[in-house]
């Protein structure tokens, strides 16, 4: 394959390439760690850009624009020269929020999302993740395996911060978010104005976590150890379990035992198995996660 251009790489990230071209780019990414870092940074900056303008979608629309859309407004005369004299000033943000109390929560819901994205911008994209020393979550008396030293390399584990950050964003936005956090919604018919640029790979089977009361809400794509990965979001009414994230990525590293970690006040368990890396992220205690891991591992073995 010729040297991969930024155009091709970005078209790949945007889901604009046909299957053969996408496979070529994926192969190039596997072979070139530098290219991978570049792709990951580009993917992160796209998320940051969307987040930077997300607030606008949740602001109440000024009355003058609603009137203009209905043909009820005084036409703006000489808009090009009247730039310094806004025809009608719309109310201050606080007043507008009070008038449209029904939508104001969205703005505040979006704030932690913005904070999380910002931390990804500052950290993940640009390589300045704060070094978070791994620490074991409190054990709950359930049977747990001994701490492992053969788990995936912690030294290259900024992705653990990344998936914890996205988990928090998803929880903050709520399952019916329209903050464009998911690339593939659970219900494609109700995907809103944003197009589905990508789909889950045809050979990808969603883990069935319904027995745990977990309902699939959508998926997003990311990079882990330089390879494309999928992060699946689940929610539940069970407050003790809470929302859960499952991450599946391909890897060429050998199998590893499950390892525990705690990032961003969330528990994580992650392992490698037959060319895939898996991770669970949630606020549930490690015992809960361990049991779900067992179920998931059994399902994945069966695939």
């Amino acid at each position: 394959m010729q040297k991969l251009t930024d155009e091709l790489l970005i078209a790949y990230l945007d889901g604009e390439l046909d299957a053969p071209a996408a496979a070529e780019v994926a192969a190039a990414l596997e072979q070139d760690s530098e290219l991978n870092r570049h792709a990951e940074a580009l993917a992160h900056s796209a998320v940051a850009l969307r987040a930077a303008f997300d607030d606008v979608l949740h602001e109440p629309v000024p009355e003058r624009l609603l009137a203009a859309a209905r043909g009820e407004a005084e036409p703006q005369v000489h808009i090009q020269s009247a730039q310094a004299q806004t025809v009608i000033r719309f109310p201050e943000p606080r007043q507008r929020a009070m008038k449209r109390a029904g939508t104001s929560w969205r703005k505040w819901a979006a704030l932690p999302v913005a904070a999380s994205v910002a931390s990804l911008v500052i950290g993940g994209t640009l390589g300045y993740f704060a070094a978070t020393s791994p620490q074991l979550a409190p054990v709950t008396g359930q049977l747990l395996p001994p701490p492992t030293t053969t788990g995936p390399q912690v030294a290259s584990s900024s992705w653990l911060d990344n998936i914890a950050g996205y988990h928090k964003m998803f929880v903050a936005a709520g399952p019916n978010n329209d903050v464009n956090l998911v690339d593939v919604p659970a219900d494609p018919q109700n995907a809103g104005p944003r197009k589905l640029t990508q789909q889950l790979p045809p050979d990808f089977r969603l883990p069935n976590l319904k027995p745990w009361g977990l309902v699939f809400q959508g998926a997003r794509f990311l990079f882990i150890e330089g390879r494309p990965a999928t992060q699946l979001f689940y929610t539940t009414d069970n407050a003790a379990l809470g929302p859960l994230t499952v991450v599946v990525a391909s890897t060429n590293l050998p199998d590893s035992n499950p390892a525990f970690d705690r990032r961003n006040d969330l528990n994580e368990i992650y392992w490698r198995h037959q060319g895939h890396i898996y991770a669970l992220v949630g606020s549930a205690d490690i015992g809960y996660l361990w049991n779900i891991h067992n179920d998931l591992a059994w399902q994945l073995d069966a695939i």
Partner: protein
Amino acid sequence: MRQAGPKVPAPAGPNPVSVRFSDQLVAVLPRLRRFARGLTGSAADADDLVQAACERALAREHQFQEGTRFDSWMFRIVQTIWIDQIRSRDVRKEEPEEEAERMGSDEPVRRVEARLALAEVRDALKELPPDQRVALLLVTVDGLSYKEAAAVAEVPVGTIMSRLARARVALQAKLESGSAERSRDDAEADR
């Protein structure tokens, strides 16, 4: 008893707007505002731009063809007016964004930092050439396909692809240099 006169049709209003057209316009307003905010970099200018686009759309409702994507048609109008504006005048210096006003001094530091980081992204966008800004906002922010964005910008798909690539790489470089600068400042402050 007076006889009723012949029925006279009610006079048409000064600007009869079909309800369906108007409803579509209202529905797309939040996205138009976001697009315009990204183009102009200013909340007030963006809303002026959207208002002008609404007026133009209503005046040209008859030109809208069924089967055309309404949102794309509106994006094109916004873009055209904006290009006309920046061609005919120097864009005034951007006002501080209203988010800065919204932040109280007692807001937790993390949120303030988040706002600043996202403001940095918006600033980086403002430094890009207009055509690249349009491509980024249509594809990366609004999620249009390359083909749809090309139709809005009235350029070939290949042009959108290359503009987008240049824009994404430039944006990434700007964010990276901003971050490097920030960590240098932090290091100096720690000394």
